[in-house]
């Protein structure tokens, strides 16, 4: 039975805290701090091997599909702005707008994965870049694959927010989880902002 049906049970976001910050928000930031270390360790390993290993052979930039990755970067940036506009909409008590922006965010996330689904086989079949073809392939598929999994996780979280929004759960005074979903989604965008120049341009 949900907390809403039993008035004396607090919703998790209502629990008093000793920090003044809601548990959910602090928890999300601690989780993201661990994610920073995960991606940070991969990126620093990439830099060392890229600079120092004679086995690291970088494919020519023309082969990497910079235009398609550029479009994908713009898609993620658009999804970030629609996400933050969804939060602003519910804060202004405009649930209809919020649902529209959330749907647009999810659509952009799906589009990003669809572009990746096109890009991966192109790299395997046409260019011969695979997980085992060399260091670049290993790093490329590990980092973009891990990022893709984070996009999938974000899509699941955003879909939950959208469904609850359609059910009328969110209001200006109860939209913490919309904010947490946003913080996570912006982090996914932030990681891609670093991966894009690292893997496609430099």
């Amino acid at each position, binding site marked *: 039975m949900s907390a809403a049906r039993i008035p004396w049970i607090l919703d998790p976001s*209502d629990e*008093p*805290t*000793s*920090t*003044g*910050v*809601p548990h959910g*928000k*602090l928890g999300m*930031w*601690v989780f*993201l*701090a*661990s994610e*920073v*270390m995960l991606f*940070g*360790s991969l990126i*620093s390993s990439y*830099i*060392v091997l890229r*600079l*120092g290993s004679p086995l690291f052979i970088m494919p020519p930039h023309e082969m990497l599909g*910079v235009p398609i990755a*550029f479009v994908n*970067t*713009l898609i993620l*940036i*658009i999804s*970030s*702005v629609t*996400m*933050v*506009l969804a*939060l*602003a*909409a519910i*804060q*202004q008590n405009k649930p209809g707008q919020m649902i529209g922006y959330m749907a647009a965010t999810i659509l952009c996330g799906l589009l990003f994965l669809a572009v990746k689904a096109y890009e991966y086989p192109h790299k395997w079949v046409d260019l011969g870049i695979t997980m085992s073809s060399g260091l670049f392939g290993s790093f490329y598929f590990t980092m973009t694959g891990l990022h893709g999994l984070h996009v999938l996780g974000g899509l699941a979280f955003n879909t939950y927010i959208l469904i609850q929004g359609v059910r009328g759960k969110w209001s*200006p*005074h109860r*939209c*913490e989880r*919309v*904010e947490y979903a*946003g*913080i996570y989604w*912006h*982090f996914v*965008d*932030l990681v891609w*902002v*670093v991966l*894009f*120049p690292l893997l496609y*341009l*430099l």
Partner: protein
Amino acid sequence: MEQPKHALSEVQTSAQSHGDPQKMVRVYLAIFAALAILTVLTVWVNSLHVTRVTAISIAAFIALVKVTLIAMFFMHLKVEGKWIYGVVVLSLIAILILIFLISPDIAGILGGARS
């Protein structure tokens, strides 16, 4: 002794902490425009025939600006308090340690390349 818990009314809520949402919409759209322009700039600079060091420096600088804009405005770090900043600073220290630990390797690689 256990610290007093904050009353429900003292716990910051989303609606109160980010300022006037109507005004913030304009800020979000301005940040979006800046991010799009910076993305175009990254690709354009890379197409120019500049030295590798220059290309890396410019790309790293633009990425840093974009990351800062996303964190400060979209993730609302700009209006967060000491607890959230504490977590962010801890993760940045971890990243600096990672970079610090690999710097001898990078110095060795660059030294080897020169000799």
